[in-house]
């Protein structure tokens, strides 16, 4: 009856009636309904994941001036299914000397660390699994499990390339967690909530206009967390092959691969939720929850497309450059920005919207400009030390 306004609750109530009608205990029915909901969400995500393979391959082909998969089915749409069949019928082996249990758990943990993120994603005002009041910390906690899965995979494979690749990747993930956490606190300050639904509800003006620098830093940290180019240090065709997942074949490799794609899409979604208003789009979310879901998926797709765009146009950064960039530039900037945003938010509270938004925007621009100036001065001094002051002065004229 009320299905079009609150589909989840209506469906749950209806199922509750059916199950208790069969003489089932009410608590047991509740557990079963929650379980069915999780099953539905994960099934939808995995089906989406299959098409993400196709999307990724099509998009990279366009960026590289190719056509991409175009033989199997219309526009190559059946290609990912052929790939899955291929992955499933490959030999499922365990390398010699590998730690069997850890080796087999790692791909599962990798996929799991992505899927559990969706427990807190608000797809519409009423379509969400749980509105956790510590949602943003939960995002970091799920990332910690992903980090663990990579080091487990690298160690259990009994392969030095895998281990070195895992070390590099984990170094990236652990370091970039710091600026990510600092930028996650900025939407928290602006909305006064750590729950994702609260953050979306507070975005009458998208936070990207209030804190553009925070959105940028979050995107950089998210790409590093994903281990995608330009931060794909675990890969190195001439030295390490593909890093922590070298020894994995068949569907075990498929889990890592699918997990990475879904992770990229998920971070696109989180970027949209935190800075681009989530499911909100000029009141469309009020019309119908299904429209809100469509808006949310569309925004997540745009975020995913931007992550792919960066991946396929940027070169890989060397590991010491990457770590120096994080610890000496991104982390201090993120913390300074956090303080500036908190201060400006307190000073500008109660002012008219146009003044508030422009003031916050300007404070962000100011922090970005100051950071670039400091970086320029420092790097110029470094270069003078190496090349002598004259060469640098000449290069600047």
């Amino acid at each position: 009856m009320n299905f079009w306004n609150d589909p989840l609750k209506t469906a749950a109530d209806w199922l509750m009636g059916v199950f208790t009608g069969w003489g089932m205990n009410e608590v047991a029915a509740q557990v079963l309904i929650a379980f069915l909901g999780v099953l539905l969400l994960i099934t939808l995500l995995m089906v989406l994941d299959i098409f993400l393979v196709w999307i990724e391959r099509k998009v990279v082909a366009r960026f590289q001036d190719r056509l991409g998969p175009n033989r199997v089915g219309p526009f190559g749409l059946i290609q990912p299914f052929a790939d899955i069949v291929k992955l499933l019928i490959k030999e499922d082996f365990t390398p010699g000397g590998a730690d069997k249990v850890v080796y087999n758990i790692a791909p599962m943990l990798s996929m799991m660390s992505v899927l559990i993120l969706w427990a807190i994603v608000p797809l519409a005002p009423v379509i969400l699994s749980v509105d956790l009041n510590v949602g943003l910390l939960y995002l970091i906690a799920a990332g910690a499990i992903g980090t663990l899965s990579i080091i487990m995979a690298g160690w259990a494979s009994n392969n030095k390339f895998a281990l070195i690749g895992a070390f590099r990747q984990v170094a990236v993930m652990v370091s970039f967690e710091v600026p990510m956490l600092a930028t996650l606190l900025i939407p928290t300050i602006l909305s006064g909530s750590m729950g994702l639904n609260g953050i979306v509800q507070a975005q009458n003006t998208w936070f990207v206009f209030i804190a553009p620098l925070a959105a940028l830093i979050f995107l950089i940290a998210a790409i590093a967390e994903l281990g995608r180019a330009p931060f794909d240090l675990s890969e190195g065709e001439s030295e390490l092959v593909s890093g922590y997942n070298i020894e994995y074949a068949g569907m075990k490799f498929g889990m890592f691969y699918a997990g990475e794609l879904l992770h990229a899409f998920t971070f696109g979604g989180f970027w949209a939720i935190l800075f681009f208003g989530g499911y909100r789009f000029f009141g469309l979310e009020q019309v119908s929850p299904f429209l809100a879901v469509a808006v949310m998926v569309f925004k997540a797709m745009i975020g995913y497309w931007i992550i792919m765009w960066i991946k396929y146009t940027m070169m890989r950064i060397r590991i010491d450059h990457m770590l120096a960039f994080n610890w000496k530039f991104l982390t201090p900037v993120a913390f300074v920005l956090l303080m500036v945003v908190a201060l400006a938010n307190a000073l500008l509270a109660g002012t008219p919207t146009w003044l508030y938004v422009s003031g916050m925007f300007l404070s962000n621009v100011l922090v970005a400009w100051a950071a670039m100036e400091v970086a320029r001065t420092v790097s110029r001094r470094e270069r003078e030390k190496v090349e002598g002051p004259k060469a640098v002065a000449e290069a600047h004229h």
Partner: protein
Amino acid sequence: MTAEQIVFLIVALVTLGSAFMVVTTRNLIHAALWLVATLFGVAVVYALLNAGFLAVVQVVVYIGAIAILFIFAVMLTRKDARDSGPQTHKNWWVGALLAVASYLGLSALVLGWSGSSKAAAGLPSGFDAVGQLGEALTSPNAYVLPFEVASVLLLAALVGAVYVAFNRK
């Protein structure tokens, strides 16, 4: 038994079992991974107690930072992370005695307290646990001093670590 009690018993058994594996397994990496399972079990206990913030922080800090650090340290120290020496100290019975004595003492204390057999009152609906915790940590009437002292201590440790590792030219 309620559903919550069943979940608690399962989580407690898993936590204790993995804690036991941490000290008995001979492979150091496995010990670290069992420790992760133990810490995760503790996080689930926090979640069962409606302390969502602590549960998530437990995972972020202990699994995301400390366990990863352990694994790194183990991997960097030795080629073969296996231990072949005896697993017990010759004074193990003293330790066992102390453990049993402190367990009995704590049990006696808890059982002697009148509140131990009562069920806790449920939280009022709309109770903002994270907000309350934040206010308690920053309010001068509550815990702002211990909180700041702990922060300064951590900062000092951080500065000290940087000083030790700093490469003077």
